Structure formats: C-alpha cells, structure tokens
C-alpha cells in the first residue's frame, strides 16, 4: 500500500492566483453582507484592485523566475516558468481594462447587467426589480473566480489540473453571459448554448485525458511526453486522446471547426463580458495549448503540424469570409476573433523557438484592441422617440456617420480596427509581423502566404467599418437612430489604456518583445 506524501507547496509562487481567488470569495461575502448602498462600490474597488495587486505579484515572480528560477510546484502539477508568467501578466492586464468597462455605468445610471438575474425576461418581477434599482453585484466575484481559473490555466502542467482550471474559468462565464440587461432572451440563449457546447467540449477533453492516462499511466504533461517516446503499440489510443484534449482547448480559443458558439455567444452576452472573455479566455487557452504542444507533443514523435495547419487555415478563411457578410457589429467582431485565432495559431504551428513569444505578443495586441473595440460598442446606443438612451446600436448601418458626430470616439475605434487589420504603427501590425516571421522561420512558408492573403482580405471589413463611420451619411431606415453616449470615467480610462497600448506597442514594441523573448523557455 502506498503511503500518502503531502506535496510541498510553494505558497509564494501561487500568490497571484490566491489573491484573485481570495478576492473572489471575499466578493461573495460582500454580496451577502455589505449593505446595498455601498455594496457595488466595494465590489468594484475589489475587482479593480485585485488584478492590479496580482499583476504586481506576477512582476515580482518574474524577477525570481526569469534567469533560471523556473520550477514545478505542488508535486509537479503546476509549472512556474516564463511563458506561464507572461501569459498571466497579459491576462491580468485584460482583466484590469475589462473589469473597468464592466463596472461602468451609462450617464443615466444604467449598468450593463440585469437588475435581477433570476427574474424571467419581461416579467412583472423584473420590472419591479428595475424600478427598485436593484443591482446584481455578484458579477464581480464571478468574474474574479473566472479570472482565477484563467491564471491557473497557463501554469497547468498536468491534464487534470488543466481540466479543473478549464471548468473554473468556464462556469462563471456561462452565468455572466446570461446577465445582459437588454435583449435578455438573446443573452439567455447565448449562455445556454455556451454552456451546452462547453460541457460537450469538456467531456471530449476529459475523455481524451482518460485515454492518454490509459496510454501512458500518467496525467502529467512531461511524463506523457516521456512515456510516448518509450511505449510501443497503443498508438491509436494516444492519437485519439491527444486530438480530444487539443479539441477541448481549441474550442476555448474559438478556432474552426470548434468556433460555432463564438458568434452567438459574443452577440448575446453583455458587451463588457464579451470584451473581457474574447481577450482573456483566448489568451489563457492559447497559453495552455502552448504548454501542451511544446512540452508533451514533441515526445510523441509524430507531427501535429498538419492538424494545426488545417485548423489555422480554416479559421483564417472562414472567419474572414463570414465576417464580410455580417451586418451586426458584435457578430463581425466575433468572426474577426475567429480569424484572429487562426492568425495566432500561425505563430506556433511549426513549434519554432520564437513561437511562444510571438504568440503572446500577438495575443496582447489583439486583446487590447478587442477590449477597446467592445468598450466602444457599449457606448453607441439607440434612442427612442423621446430621446432616451436604450439598447446598443449594433446594426452596422446605425454606425454610419459616427465619425462626424463623435470624432474622438470614432478615431479610437478606428485605431482598434486598424490594429485588427494589422496596419503599421499599430500593435496589430507588429503582432502579425512577429507571428508570421516565427512561422516562416519554422519553414511554414505556404501558411505564411495564406495568412498574408487572409489578413489582406480581412482588412477589407475593418476598413469598411471605418468608411462607414466617416464617409457615409446615416440613411433613412426603420431602425431607430443611434448616437454615442459619454463614456463613464472607468470606460474612458480603459479606452485610453487600450489605445495607448495599441499605439505604443506599434511604435515601440522592442521592450515588450525583448521581455517576452526571455519567456520562451518551458520548465519540464
């Protein structure tokens, strides 16, 4: 009989995760015990301070780890190394700007979330809750708990931990997706779809883990690599298991053909949640894919490249083609996010040495523009006949002429769109550049050519929105007119940060690229 040996736990290395998870739990208590008058303020402060504190902790760990301090923690279940910390830092940055947008209210005091999540849409109860000015402040602890899962994801060195992190990050997001204040039925539908498909992909992931365990007798990624190199026979099991695990992760990044949920969920979820989810979840899932590919895959001795090639090409092409025919800004951005999953994959298909740093930079550039773009979407609103601000004006025709009425807001949106399109002097350009160079260095020339063509085609629908904002006059239509509202202080700060980041990373990316280049080494 084996005796249980308690693992040594390096609490310091876990402190960033602990800060976030701890604050999330405190937030639950706040929602229960703090009086309603100050509840929301406390929640917002907690939700903004915690990621900042965690960011400081990550910076401290970075100074410990980079330069030879990489190690595995908790009996090898977690890995603390450069790529993990870099991914955590990027996720935390997205959390700060994303939460700021979530916490903002419109000038008329309306917030993004339903006053009472449990009330059926259109019911008298809902109306009463709205009149009473109730607010569902639980969204902040939920977001924090999801963030905790995202922070574990890049560190997970073991398939079960990875699975738990996947669930921890997903479950709160399902709930958050259902919380939109307006168009609640759409929001509910989105959340249910997200949940069902998420559960389906989790099941696939778990099944894959079981098969891989059966194949190698271990669930740790490095062991898996080693076992694969020595085990003879049973290859079928390994192949199926590996594909299933990879599928679970590709589902989270929204790559074709596992992308079907993306447009529906991005459209239905409350826009601030969409922005945060699109940026942070993608980063966390890509970080997990990085570790799976760079630590476990080489041991199998077979080539996962063709699968990644196919997924990357399909994502870029389908994302681009489908985005062109959309008429809803949120769906356009959703398909653009699918295309970006493909572009990001290009960086790592050939498992080249610059792959991880290129991918992380790409995600940083993409995420800043994403949070910013969705923040702008929250501000463009319809008005009813009395001039009251109502729901978001998401139909593209409603954006016509925005540049004339709100030059600064339109210019900010333009900057994000140009970054998506990869125009020089924006972060998106440098991101695409380093990603494609990384692929080319790994010999994936044909893929780079396809990627360049796809990004040229993708530029079309970004520029179309810019043209719409500046050069089109609003046409007469049955849709209510749209106008932008003044951003709240937090949204304004978030927009400024995202825009600055997009510009600075485009004009002077070297320091960040150098930092990320140090982060290329995985601990085994």
């Amino acid at each position, binding site marked *: 009989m084996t005796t249980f040996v308690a693992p040594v736990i390096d609490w310091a290395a876990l402190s960033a995760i602990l800060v976030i998870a701890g604050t999330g739990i405190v937030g639950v208590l706040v929602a229960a015990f703090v009086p309603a008058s100050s509840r929301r303020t406390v929640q917002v402060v907690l939700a903004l301070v915690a990621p900042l504190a965690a960011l400081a902790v990550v910076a401290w760990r970075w100074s410990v780890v980079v330069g030879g301090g990489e190690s595995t923690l908790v009996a090898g279940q977690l890995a603390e190394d450069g790529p993990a910390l870099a991914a955590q830092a990027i996720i935390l940055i997205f959390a700060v700007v994303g939460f700021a947008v979530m916490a903002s209210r419109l000038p008329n005091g309306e917030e993004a979330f339903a006053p009472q999540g449990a009330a059926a849409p259109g019911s008298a109860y809902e109306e009463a809750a709205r009149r009473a000015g109730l607010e569902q402040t639980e969204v902040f602890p939920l977001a924090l708990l999801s963030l905790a899962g995202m922070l574990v994801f890049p560190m997970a060195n073991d398939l079960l931990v990875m699975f738990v992190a996947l669930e921890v990050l997903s479950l709160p997001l399902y709930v958050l997706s259902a919380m939109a204040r307006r168009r609640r039925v759409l929001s509910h539908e989105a959340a*249910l*779809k997200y949940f*069902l*498909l998420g559960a*389906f*992909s989790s099941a*696939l992931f778990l099944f894959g883990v079981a098969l891989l365990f059966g194949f190698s007798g271990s669930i740790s990624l490095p062991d898996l690599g080693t076992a694969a190199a020595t085990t003879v026979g049973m*290859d*079928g099991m390994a*192949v*199926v298991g*590996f*594909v*299933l695990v*990879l*599928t679970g992760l590709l*589902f989270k990044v929204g790559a*074709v*053909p*596992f992308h*079907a*949920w993306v*447009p*529906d969920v991005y459209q239905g979820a409350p826009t601030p949640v969409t922005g945060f989810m699109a940026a942070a979840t993608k980063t966390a899932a890509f970080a997990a894919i990085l570790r799976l590919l760079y630590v476990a895959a080489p041991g199998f001795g*077979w*080539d*996962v*490249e*063709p*699968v990644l090639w*196919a*997924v990357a090409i399909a994502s870029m*092409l*389908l994302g681009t*083609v*489908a985005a*062109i*025919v959309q008429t809803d800004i949120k769906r356009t951005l959703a398909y653009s996010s699918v295309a970006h999953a493909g572009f990001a994959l290009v960086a790592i298909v050939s498992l080249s040495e610059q792959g991880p740093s290129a991918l992380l930079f790409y995600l940083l550039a993409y995420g800043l523009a994403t949070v910013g773009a969705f923040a702008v979407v929250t501000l463009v609103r319809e008005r009813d006949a009395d001039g009251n601000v109502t729901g978001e004006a998401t139909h593209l025709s409603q954006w016509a002429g925005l540049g004339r009425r709100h030059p*600064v807001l339109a210019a900010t949106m333009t900057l994000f769109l140009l970054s998506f399109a990869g125009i020089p*002097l924006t972060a998106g350009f*440098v991101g695409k*550049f*380093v990603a494609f*160079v990384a692929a*080319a*260095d790994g010999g994936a020339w044909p893929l780079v050519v396809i990627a360049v063509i796809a990004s040229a085609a993708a530029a079309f629908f970004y520029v179309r929105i810019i043209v719409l904002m500046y050069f089109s006059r609003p046409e007469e239509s049955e849709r209510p007119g749209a106008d932008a509202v003044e951003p709240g202080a937090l949204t304004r700060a978030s927009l400024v940060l995202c825009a600055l980041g997009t510009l600075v990373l485009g004009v*002077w*990316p*070297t320091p960040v*690229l150098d930092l990320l280049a140090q982060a290329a080494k995985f601990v085994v």
Partner: protein
Amino acid sequence: MIDYSWLLVAIPLASAALLLLLGRRADAWGHLLGVLAAAGAFVVGLLVFLEVMGQPSEDRIHDVFLYSWIPAGDLHIDAGLRIDPLSLTFVLLITFVGTLIHIYSIGYMAHDAARRRFFAYLNLFVAAMLLLVLADSYALLFVGWEGVGLASYLLIGFWNHNLEYAVAAKKAFVMNRVGDMGLIIAMGLLFAAIGSVSFTDVDAAVTAGALSTAQVTAVGLMLLLGAVGKSAQFPLQAWLGDAMAGPTPVSALIHAATMVTAGVYLVVRSRLIFEASPTAQLVVACIGAFTLLLGAAIACAKDDIKKSLAGSTMSQIGYMVLAAGLGPIGYAFAIFHLVTHGFFKAGLFLGAGSVMHANGDSTDMRTYGALRKVMLVTWLTFGACWLAIMGVPPFSGFYSKDKIIESAFVGEGWQPWVFGGAALIGAGVTAFYMSRMFFLTFHGKARWVEAGATVAPDDPRPVRHPHESPLVMTVPIIVLAIGALGLGFALTLGNGITGWLEPVTGHYDHDAHHAVLPVPVITVTTLVLVALGIALAWRQYGMSPVPLTAPTGSALTRAARRDFYADDVNEGLVMRPGQHLTRTLVYADTAVVDGAVRGTASGAVGLGQLARKLQNGYVRSYAAMILAGVVLAGIVLHLVRM
C-alpha cells in the same frame, strides 16, 4: 546634446498630442503652449548646432541610434536620427521660421474659434517635418514625409466648412500620394537590391557600385517622382495653387518655407544615387529649369496675391531643383537658396496675410492699391523681401540666386546654354511679377473706398478700412525682413554655408570649372534683366491706372491664369481614367466578388452558404460540427503518423 536630439521631434509632438487630447480645456492657453513648443525645439536645435559647430568638419556627421523599430530576423529596421550639417541647416530653418509663424498666428487666428486645434496641427507639422529631415533612413524619412502630408492636408482643409477648401485639401492629398508611390517604389527597389534603406548602407552600396546603372537610374527617377510631388514641380505642380485655401500662416510655413522644399532635401540627401546616374540627374535639372519658367509665368498672370506667390514658390523651388540637378557644383547653392528663400518667401506670405487682414480677407490685388500710406511697416518689410527675391544686391536673394545662375552656365554642350538661359530669363520674369504684385498692392491709386467716406452709388470700388496689423503680427515679419536683408551676406562670411555643408555635399573645386560666359557678364546681364522687369511693371501697374476687372489678355496670359490647363490635363489624364478604373473595379467587385459571394450564397456548395447553413443556431448542429472536426483531426493525425 546630440544624444538628446530626439527632443527636437518629441517636444512639438507632445505639445500637439496634448492640445488635441485636452480639447476645449486648453482653448485659453493652447496657442501659447504651441509657440513654446516650437521655440523649445529651436533652442534644442541651436544647442545641437553649436555643439556640432565646435567639432572639426570631418567629424560633423553623427548617427544617433534611437531604438530598434521592427526587429525581426533579417528584416531589421532601426529608428535613428542623422545629425549632420544638412539636417541641422533644415532644423534651424524649420524651427526658427516656424516659431515666428507660430507667433504671427496668435494674431492672425485670434478670431477663430478653433485656434487651439490650428496650433496643434502646426506643432504636428513641425514635428513631422523635423522627423523628415532628421531621419537616418528612407523608411523613417517616409514616416515624416507622410506626417507633413497629413498635417498639410489638415491645415489646407482647416476651414473645411467651405466645400471648395475641402476639395483643395483633397486635391493636394491625392497628388501627393502619386509622388509617395515613387518614394515607396524607390524604397522597395533599394530593399530588393541591397536589403536596407538606411542612408549609410545605401550610400556605401552605391559608392561600392553594388547597383547596376539601370537600378540606380530607376531608384533615382522614383525618388525624383516623390520629390516632384512634394515640391510641386512639373508635372505634379497643380496642387500648390489650390493649397492656398489654407490659412496664410500655413501657406507661409508649409507651402513656402519648409514642406515644399522637402523634395530638394531628398535630392540632395540622395546625391550619390543621382551622381551614379547621369540620366536621372539630367532629368532633375530639366524639371527644375522648366518649372522655374512655368511657375514664373503663372505668377505673372494671377490676380490673387496668394496664388501669385504660389506660382513664385514653384518657380523658386525650380531654381533649387535645377541647382540640385547640376551635380556637386550646385548642392550647396540649392540649400543656400532654400534657406534665404525660406526667409523672404515666408516674409512675403506673412506680409500678404497682413494685407489681407487689413482688407477684409480679400485676396484680389486689383482691389488693393496705395496701401503704402496706411500700412507702413508691412510696406517696408514687403519691400525688403521683394528686393530679396528679385536678387537685388545686397539683399539675400542676390547671393543665393546669382550663384545658381552662374553654376547653370558651367558645363559643356547644349546644357549650360539652356539651363543658364532659363535661369537668366527666370530672373527677369521674377522681377516683373514681383514688382507687379508690389506696385498693385502698395502703389498707384487706391481701388477701394475708405469706410464712411461718401461715394457715388454706382462706384464699383469695394468699401474697405485698411489698417496696420497688430505688433504680434508685424514683429515676426520684421524679423523675417531683416533675414531677407542680411542673411545672404551673412551666410557667405568665412567659409560660409557652402563650407559648412561640405561634409554632406562633397567638395567641389569651383576654380577648376569655368562658366561658358565670364561671371561679371552673367551678373550684369541678370541685373539688367531685373531692372527691365521692374521698369516694365512700373510702367504698366505703377504709373497707369489698373482696371478693377482683369482684361481678357493674350492667349499666353489666359493659359497662365488657368495654370496652363494643369487641372484639365490632370482631369483628362489621371482623374477620368482613374474614375473609369475605379468604376471598372467597382463593377468587377460587384459582378465578380459580390457575385461570387452571392453566387455561393445561392449555390449549393459555396462557402458563404455553407457558413450560413452551419451557423443555423441549433446547438445540436454545432455539437455535430465539433464532433466532425474531432474525427477529421483524428484521421489526419493518423494518416500523418503512418
């Protein structure tokens, strides 16, 4: 101080950003910040200049590495500054004249609600222009090149509520893009041939003969196309006249003193390329000689004071381009004339602005006349700049233009006669059109009526109340007029500007080459022609009465009034075919691309339809899709493994 030269660009850029971001909150003091930023850049420029002056002349070229711009494998582009006598000459000109024009604008734009935005754009322009001249590679130069184009666009269209002005801005923008294509192609060619676009690498490669003659000629001609677009030379000259729609300080700074001379800078900066290709160099000189006559003819025919000055600017830049096309003999003189021209032409424009300010923003010289008595300071300063541009000794134009005319007469074969002849005739015509402007504006009989005076009801003359401009406007003009008076002489003292520029423009032994005519003969002929031009103008516009509406004039005058049909030519050659092309493209887009999308949407197997069909909203289909993906991935992986 050289290490801090990045401040030159950073200070005005930061100020522009601040003014734009702060919005109306900065309205009260925005213009002061704008002036301070320009002045700050001048102080930094002066300090760098003094430090470089203290060094021996062979050590005066510095490359300041800023940061690695796009570091990725072999495609490595650094951002860095080139500090040398050429760039410093431009820095001082831009920041000094720029500061004066900023100050002048305080008064000129005092009544404009958007004054802060105006100063933000001016600062943006100064930053971009400094980046253009300080860049150490064609790539970074191009950033500045586009930056000044953008600032110019914003400022020409500053009063864009007027549709005509907005159209003018667009025209300048489009014609500049044509030139930019040349610059981009030149960079592409250089990159393909030697894998770098930094000045150091390109110069080394050209010196080592790494490029074939055909390659060098192609690069040279493409650079020239860029220069021609920016400097309003033939055949891309038509935008400059329309650019006068912008506020007058903008015309003075951007469309006279600095931005339009960027083409000359580009040619001089790329001199090794042009020296390696005699063909390209000859084309440069031809374009310069032709434009100097074309611009002068346009200037003679225009009644709009600013458009006449615009023609004059074309013509004077033609002189500079001609000098730059003459080879090593001319580079330093091109820059010399560029500097003196920067002063007296800015002075003329600001003077014109002062006159317009006094006449209710009218630009029609036929409604001026006899303004000498009411605008004494403007008259005196305008007079100094007038004498300078005509090249009357001892005013500054005499020193710089005379050198160009002399150099044009050096050489063999037909060239000295053609180029020299053009330069000589140009000097005479310059004297005529400038005197015409001067006499029409300040002398003769008043063709306006003082407000409040009793007039006959059928008097066609407009009612005006001309007055001298405030000090904040006249002081900058006085400073520029002093430059027009003394700068030419000052820059020939000691080694002069030619000696200062020698590390960049190369040494040229002037004693070893002789003009085809003796120098005194050239000088005397020039002065005689100038005197003739003045006399002719005095006879026609000073002594005799000037009608309020322009007479029909000869065919030449009519053609010149319409910019020699440049607009019609552009419309016929570029715009209509361009519109046809876009229409065809739109048609192709509708028929082919949209058709393909629609076709696939209505067809059975198209991607669009497939995507739409797949995205049917049913969770079960989505799950099936995921499953299909898994199966496919498994099969692919299985096949690859075997």
